[in-house]
């Protein structure tokens, strides 16, 4: 499809042409200042091809197909590859390029930020901990939109207390044998692979006895059951493992190193992914502002939500720049998550206040979108480490208040 599609997209021009006629693949290193206008122009030029084929939110199936389409088109032009290491199919350059790409796709409504950001959540850690050959073989598939990956961390008995996880991986002659259950696994029903945390030590080994694996979701013994949620989508799933065999060479890091993998990965949930989500919220505030009836909201309440989103942007932007200089992210990203969750709920409270009739009673596509997003925003203080867990991290790690009781 790609050659034909590319020819269509470019109207016969070279698929490699970018800003000023230079080929992006020939320009290294790509700097953000050059990347930004070139990408913007490409997005503008290919607006029709990139746009969703559905109106409104679309079904989850449609959203996932849209995500794959956009990734593929952006990959073929090189955009998707900038900011990722060359050893895994990237073109190198700063991680800021990735942050900008996701922002640009999100604010144009081309991708759902959650689905898109799985790349940012799982990618960096998988690349760091997988065998180099495995990372090189697998990662480009995620980048190109050929595959969907999911993150198997939470379990029915393990929500906030991640170190208590019980999904068991046992050594056998054929590899790891996995039995247990995960829950809240986003996009598992679409996923080709899963970054899975398993218990390999004794049940009471806590964070010491955890091992991370990179598994094929098509393996025999895996059952996925999507969970209906209050916002109407079914992106979260239960995943059941019944004696699933996973080769040893799919271990991420060493046996017993799973906690480090998790601790490296979790800050990524709170960095580039949040930058993308912040861009989405900003877009929705602008949508609200352009449609809200005169007098429905006070200037003060609108101003305050703008300030919250701005403070989030300022903080998250600084995090992006730290990441780009190679700084290792840690507990300070909990500040970003708290700002995001607070701002997201404030924004959709404002939506409910300003467009109450539409959100509560409306049935057209726009109402449905507002309603779905309003309901989803209720989870902002729950998913990705609850508001309480983030505050515990801030208290213990940033304020040095010692252990809680």
């Amino acid at each position, binding site marked *: 499809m790609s050659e034909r599609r590319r020819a269509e997209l470019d109207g016969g021009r070279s698929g490699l042409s970018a800003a000023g006629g230079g080929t992006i693949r020939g320009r290294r290193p790509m700097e953000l200042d050059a990347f930004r206008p070139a990408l913007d122009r490409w997005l503008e030029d290919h607006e029709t091809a990139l746009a969703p084929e559905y109106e409104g939110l679309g079904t989850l199936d449609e959203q996932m197909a849209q995500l794959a389409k956009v990734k593929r088109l952006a990959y073929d032009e090189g955009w998707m590859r900038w900011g990722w290491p060359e050893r895994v199919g990237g073109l190198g350059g700063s991680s800021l390029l990735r942050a*900008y790409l996701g922002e640009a796709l999100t604010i144009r409504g081309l991708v759902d930020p959650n689905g898109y950001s799985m790349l940012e959540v799982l990618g960096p850690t998988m690349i760091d901990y997988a065998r180099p050959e495995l990372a090189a073989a697998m990662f480009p598939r995620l980048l190109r939109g050929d595959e969907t990956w999911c993150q198997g961390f939470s379990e029915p008995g393990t929500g906030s207390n991640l170190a208590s996880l019980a999904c068991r991986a046992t050594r056998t002659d054929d590899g790891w044998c996995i039995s247990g259950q995960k829950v809240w696994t986003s996009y598992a029903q679409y996923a080709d692979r899963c970054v899975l945390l398993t218990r390999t030590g004794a049940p009471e080994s806590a964070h010491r006895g955890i091992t991370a694996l990179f598994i094929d979701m098509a393996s025999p013994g895996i059952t996925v059951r999507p969970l209906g949620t209050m916002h109407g989508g079914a992106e979260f799933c239960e995943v059941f493992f019944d004696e699933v065999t996973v080769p040893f060479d799919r271990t991420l890091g060493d046996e017993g190193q799973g906690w480090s993998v998790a601790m490296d990965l979790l800050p990524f949930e709170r960095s580039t992914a949040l930058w993308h989500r912040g861009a989405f919220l900003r877009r929705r505030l*602008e949508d609200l502002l352009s449609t809200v009836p005169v007098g429905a909201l006070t*200037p*003060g309440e609108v101003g305050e939500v703008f300030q919250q989103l701005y403070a989030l942007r300022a903080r998250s932007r600084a995090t992006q720049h730290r990441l780009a200089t190679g700084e290792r992210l840690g507990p300070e990203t909990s500040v970003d998550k708290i700002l995001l969750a607070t701002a997201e709920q404030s924004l959709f409270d404002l939506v409910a206040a300003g467009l109450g009739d539409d959100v509560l009673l409306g049935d057209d596509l726009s109402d449905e979108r507002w309603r779905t997003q309003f309901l989803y925003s209720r989870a902002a203080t729950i998913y990705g480490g609850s508001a309480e867990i983030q505050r515990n991290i801030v208290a213990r790690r940033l304020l040095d*208040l*010692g252990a*809680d009781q």
Partner: protein
Amino acid sequence: MMDREELELFRASLRQAIAGQTGKALDDALDELGWRDALASDRRAAVSTLFELQGSANAASSALDLVLAKSMNVDAAVVLPPLGRVDPPGEVTGESVSVHGLGTAALERGDKAVVACEDAVVVVDTKDLTLRPVGGIDPSIELVEVSGDRVCSTTQPASIWPGAVAAGQLALAHELVGASRATLQLAREHAVERIQFGRPIAAFQAVRHRMADSLVAIEAASAALDAAWEDGSALTAGLAKAIAGRSARTVARHCQQVLAGIGFTAEHPFHRYLRRTLVLDGLLGDTRSLTHQLGEDLFKTRRLPSVLPL
């Protein structure tokens, strides 16, 4: 621009100056240290360093006056708008100006005062103005209330005022952040030392979460400040001031609760930070009015300003 080493030296000498003195003595010490020169050569370093330290030490100086004067390129004390406001404090009628505003201690010491009006910035003789030292909730900040109806001279374009407001807002936002950090530090010290039910109160989640929220508020303000310096516009300076004001009130509320009884005594320094925070929030636009104005501006265009690109 100061390099890293110079900045460290500068910060150390400022810290020393601020540790032991406030008011006139601190102003003299700043003169001696060459803070004015620093303001001219590296405004961000000079302002952020001094005002955070000043806020943190609960000290007062008239450096805010220098920040505004420098921005307007005038050599006289500057009349600030009344509390909560950013619009010019003067109104010109014919050849005279009617003034109603506030000032730092610099206003009492100088011969000339600069008064921004709707259409021009004018200079008046200080002796012609009525100056009343402000007691109020925080006498130690040493503000003066300015009023008068006097002949004025030497006009400058009114366009220099918004930049001066923005420069002052950044300084005040840094001072608020400094005060907030010190307040949180007081609460932290108390929470880890105060034992109840056999353990430090810092072990209780309700206490920890108030302090975590305080730090989040401070970091948000601090990020908004960094962004404003980088961006350089009046819009982002106002945002930083509004966010810092709200943040400081949040921190004061949570930390007062953590400090509980001891924080309510006059012997504990908490009340001085609370008092200072309330007044600093009011200078050059309080959070409430800045936020209201921002909302009105957003409703005018019904678009978000495009700020802070990656």
